[in-house]
């Protein structure tokens, strides 16, 4: 397995895992819920004067710190919301990437099958090439023999022609000789 394949397989696993558990989605939901900070009201458990103490604390707080804390909370809220939004965007990007990876993995699987087929064909072609070379050599040998054969036939026909004419003349000579002997 190549490095790319290893990574792709891992990503696919993670992607599948992610979808099965929905953990990351829940995490983001939780973060969303916790993104907005709200100040808690001040209370007191002291008997009798507890109410007064709580009132006093709130009053004091609104006078001494709220003007300072409130903007900070607002700033923190905005930041938190920004982080959550970014995380969502990243999650969406990741899902797209996972989808693309699945397509690529599928295509690669097909390519691999085709490569395997080509490799098989190359093996067959290699064997075929050797066979063709052998046949070509055989054909050349046959061709050479055929040429030699044609030449032999031509020479034999040529000789046969000579013999034919010689036989005709011999036959005539014999007839003449026979005639002479008879007379």
């Amino acid at each position: 397995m190549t490095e790319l394949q290893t990574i792709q397989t891992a990503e696919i696993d993670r992607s599948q895992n992610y979808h099965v558990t929905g953990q990351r989605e829940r995490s983001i939901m939780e973060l969303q819920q916790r993104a907005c900070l709200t100040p808690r009201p001040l209370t007191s458990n002291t008997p009798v004067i507890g109410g007064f103490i709580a009132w006093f604390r709130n009053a004091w707080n609104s006078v001494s710190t709220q003007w300072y804390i409130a903007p900070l909370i607002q700033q923190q809220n905005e930041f938190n919301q920004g982080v959550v939004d970014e995380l969502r965007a990243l999650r969406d990007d990741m899902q797209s990437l996972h989808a693309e990876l699945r397509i690529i993995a599928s295509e690669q699987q097909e390519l691999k099958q085709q490569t395997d087929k080509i490799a098989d064909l190359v093996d067959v072609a290699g064997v075929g090439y050797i066979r063709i070379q052998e046949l070509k050599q055989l054909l050349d040998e046959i061709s050479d023999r055929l040429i030699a054969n044609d030449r032999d036939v031509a020479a034999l026909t040529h000789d046969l022609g000579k013999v034919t004419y010689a036989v005709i003349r011999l036959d005539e000579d014999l007839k003449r000789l026979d005639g002479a002997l008879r007379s």
Partner: protein
Amino acid sequence: MRIAYFSPLPPQKSGIADYSATLLPSLAEMAEIDVFVDDNLLPQLPPHPSISIHSISSFRGPLDKKQHICIYQMGANVHYHDKIFQLLRRYPGITVLHDVNMNSFFGELYLMRGQITEYTRLMAYAYSEEGLSHARSAHRGETPYDTAKYLLIEPLIERSLGVIVHSHYAESLIRARRPGVSVKRIPLVTDIAFSSASAEEAKLQLGFEQSDLIIAAFGYISPTKRLEKLLSVSSMLRNKIPHIKLAIVGEAIDGYDLYTEIAALGLADITRVTGYVKESELRTYLAATDVGFNLRYPTIGESSATLVALMASAKPTLVSNVDAFVEYPDDACIKIDIGEHEEFQIASALNKLLSDAELRRQIGHNARRYVEFTCAPALVAQQYMEFVETVLNEIAPSKMKASLSSKR
């Protein structure tokens, strides 16, 4: 002596048919001739007691009828020589090779009929590995068929006990390719009685004026006859020589159109293209001719029967100064070089000849004398018989053993 003789004969439209018709009566004075012709052909040959006509498919070899030798007239026209070639291969004899390039013959015999293997085999037989490679490469379309280099005469001459050709050019070509082959040059034959009618009578008979000056070309009309050159020169000369007339006596090969050129040059009023004519009309045209035009280039090493006919008719004739035509005496014809000066030389020669009747007479006289002493049927027949004797002596029974062992 009894000879089996294979040839086309009139009315077949072939120069070789005419050649045999002229030669056979003289040959028959010296031997008994069994003439084998295409099946169902009724040859136009005057009856002769020593000539008998047979169908070619009836031939069973020389042993059957005890012919002392077979003589095969071979040309490049497949229609007339296919069967002759098949017999030549089987029963060797003397081959009269009228063309020394037979590639077109085998191309038509095998390639045109889809028998590529036969052609390849023949090329391999004649030129070994080189021929085989060339044929295969040409079949695949990688290279054109080199018909000028591979003449393919070897399959014919190697099967033959002797070869007759008509020129020294052809003779040396064969000797160079197959030094061991017995080859003899015997000039073309022609009927010396060609020029019986007077030119004036002949002109009137053909519908010309007596004062017309006729330049005539004979035989198949094809680009190799250089007739475009004649037309081009004539379009210039007609202003200077008003009585000039052109007679193109013969049939055009398929696909060749000379009429367009004639019309384009405005020569239709002085040009006559006859198509194929019978022998009697051919003789009249020969007699009417003032100057013969017999250029030929490129050649396939052939000799020209129409040239010899013109010479026998005492006509001064222009020929191409190439191959076998170089061998004709310089004072018996006018030789035109191939190349950039060709048209100029044609124009100059025609101008001189058409303006000078005495010059025409003199060259015509020389031409006729040359033909009388070289191409007369009796002379040619005599040379045939001498060569037959030579070949038969080489294969005489007493020499047979040496003859055969030298071949193996």
